[in-house]
């Protein structure tokens, strides 16, 4: 089948998509966007987290056909080329990246959490962060530095949001 959707703001069309291929497979193997990771294909690890019309989903659980006409956002689209999103910057600064396999999914989940909180005019609390990231497994870090990174990103983005011309 033919699939048309918008990925990171660009309209993409791919042909010969098989019945049964997931959105994750199409992104990784047919669109040349391997940033979203495959660590379970069962919705258990969150490594494949992408935005589907602004809602974070496990791309491994989305059938390719379900993405028809929708807007997809992946880790590759978080920041313009050559720049880093504040969440990306915070993960690096806090030392939240070891092997990095969990990182793309965590970045999308964190961006979603922080944006939603900021839209309510606040930063997320620790229990909220833990709840929001409970679907993203990380085997390397023990999560402490990931929590540091999320807090750091939230504070930075809150600061930026108060300044004209800030991010988001």
């Amino acid at each position, binding site marked *: 089948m033919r699939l048309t959707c918008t990925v990171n703001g660009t309209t993409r069309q791919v042909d010969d998509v098989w019945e049964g291929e997931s959105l994750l497979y199409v992104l990784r193997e047919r669109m040349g966007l391997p940033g979203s990771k495959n*660590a379970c*294909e069962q919705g258990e690890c969150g490594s494949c987290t992408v935005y589907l019309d602004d809602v974070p989903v496990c791309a491994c659980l989305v059938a390719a056909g379900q993405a028809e006409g929708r807007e997809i956002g992946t880790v590759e689209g978080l920041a313009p080329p050559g720049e880093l999103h504040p969440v990306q910057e915070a993960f690096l600064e806090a030392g939240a990246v070891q*092997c990095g396999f969990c990182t793309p999914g965590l970045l999308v989940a964190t961006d979603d959490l922080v944006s939603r909180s900021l839209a309510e005019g606040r930063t997320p609390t620790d229990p909220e962060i833990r709840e929001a990231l409970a679907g993203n497994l990380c085997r390397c870090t*023990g999560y402490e530095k990931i929590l540091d990174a999320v807090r750091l990103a939230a504070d930075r983005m809150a600061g930026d949001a108060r300044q004209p011309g800030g991010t988001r």
Partner: protein
Amino acid sequence: MSAPTRTPAGAPSAVGGPGGRIGDDARRPDGVLKVRGEFAYGSDLWMDDMLWGVTLRSPHPYARIRSIDVGPALAVPGVHAVLTSDDVPGEKVYGLELADQPVLAFDVVRYQGEPVALVAADHPDTARRAAARIVVDYDVWEPVTDARVALGHPTWNQVHDSPAEVTELSRESADLHPHGNLVRHLKVRRGAPAPTADVVVVGEYEVGMQDQAFLGPESGLAVPGEDGGVDLYVATQWLHVDQRQICAALALPPERVRLTLAGVGGAFGGREDLSMHVHACLLALHTGKPVKMSYNREESFFGHVHRHPATMRYEHGATRDGDLVYVKAEIYFDGGAYASSTPAVVGNGGTMGIGPYVVPNVHVDCYGAYTNNPPCGAMRGFGSVQTAFAYEAQMDALAAELGMDPVELRCRNAMEQGSTTPTGQVVDSPAPVVELLRRLEAMPMPPAVPTGDDVDLRDMPGGVSNTTHGEGVRRGVGYAVAYKNVAFSEGFDDYSTARVRLEVVGGEAVATVHTAAAEVGQGLVTVEQQIARTELGVEQVVVHPKDTAVGSAGSTSASRQTYVTGGAVKAACEAVRGQVLELAQRGVGRPVADLRLDGGKVVSDVEGIALPLADVLGEEVVEETVEWRHRPTESIDPETGQGFAHVQYAFSAHRAVVDVDVELGLVKVVEMACTQDVGKAINPQAVIGQIQGGTAQGLGLAVMEEILVRDGRVQNPSFTDYLIPTVLDMPPMRVEILEYADPHAPYGLRGVGEAPNISSGPAVLAAIRQATGLPLTRVPVRPEHVTGT
């Protein structure tokens, strides 16, 4: 043929930012690629005309192969090759220490999931469908599933110097391998043969099978070369030991089997053995096309070795005052179907199996056995994790028996610098066991168990499932301390190779560090840059891709790379520096006192000289390759276990605070605290990251992680059924790092990665025991162990 379109990462673009010397929180050179999703892991590699390889695995734990018919698979359109053991041109078996594992099964399969055949096709689903059409006719045998039964040791408390007649097994299953079912028996004999003591405690313990559960699956891309050889891009832990085994299987010389490290999504020991390496090469050489293989999660559970399950019996004798008089231990490791690194795991389990304590009389028997369970081998903590659960439980039991405080008892018997280990080795660098424990005790405690109306369910065992508001919840606090060898032991020639180049690029002096040391997430690439910046006084340090074009770096395991490859990089930098200082003096035209490299200059404070490095170097390219070894260790005496077996020890201690809902058996770990001596923190942020990550894996084994194996079959090969800690399971952690230099090690550093993985689980167990008053001798603890249902 050309390199993959999507190339392995850690690429030459891995240039670090400013700063970042020894002792700094330097940033990872691969970090930006990783947060952008541009870092190429093994599973991301890609070439236009590549095929996908898949593996057909045995459904049976033990069976004879009568026949294999690949015809129906070959007939599937899109299939390019179907291979079996007959297509392996070289050695048909491989292994890290003993070559006993078939590349592809022939005659007999010895575990469920053993590779039997390979398929290459133009779509992964085509390959999978074709593999399902291969017809294998099996004569199914009854599996041997218990290590002690396999060795004919049905009872405890015997010295089994040789495997007894195996009477309980059927004839065809009696011996899984021609040399019998015993992989290794290690004996430690020290002091009196039959000591007695005022107070004796005996305990039997069991540790389940843990999985490394790295997130990035086994994967790689094999590209056939024009010379009849092959280039393999693969996520692995030790390129050169892979190369050695692949060469043997393919019957090719090393120059025609070239390996490059692909991005590695975690390892933790699970990538020490080969997985898809030979398979992808065979398919690529057979089809003449690049072949990618990437396991899914279920296959990954079958595709790598696990942590050995263990059964252990310990007897501790002490004086009434609490001085340890003797320890006797019998330790059984179930190695599963093939040897993997079982001999070395037995070495660790046996030599360090009583913990960091001084004991005059020690009698240890440690066995590794073949069974038809999944093969077990390396996992972080390597033979020391299992025993720590036992010896630390024993220390608590002994303290209770003596009416002593458990920390007091540990401190009273703690190893220190100058102590002699059970293997007769004098500890010749700091061993601050007492200080680690005392510092833990001094740390503040988390708030008491929440009660009353303002209980936040998220703080309760069971969380928002709303199972309790604090009724039936008991708080427990537990301590544990552990030690482990760093680097390879028992006389192994343990070395690393580093090539360092210094040259002027774009007007600036740039260093390039080339080693084959696998970066698996731990941050060795950062450490390599930090060392080069420190030793050469330059800002720009390029980390060359990791490959077999340079000599072996040894394995990324045993907490050894910062020590050994770090040592090699330091030595190579020193050699380069020597040459540069020569050049400088030639330029000046005379010997200059007190010359050093700093801030991109050749400096002598004494003589007031500061020459830009770029000017000194000019067109010169200074390059040095150094093979560096730590001081040698010795093999141990086979009858007594005595010898200088280990080059360095790492020490860590944990305090765990838990809340247990004793009615439902649910455990919430409230806080973990860790103290560890790291000698010198080369990168403090990364060191703390290792401690936090290691703590999490220990906690996972304590309360949730186990591969359930029934009759040789894995029951839970998925992340739905094999649970690892999530962010909700991990409590806040307190970490204190001590830096007592080891005078024998580069910069005084100590290997970091494994020790915290060893002491964390036993501390959690101790805390749960304190909360519940139950003995809890099996790990992981499940709710039914607490409720007794």
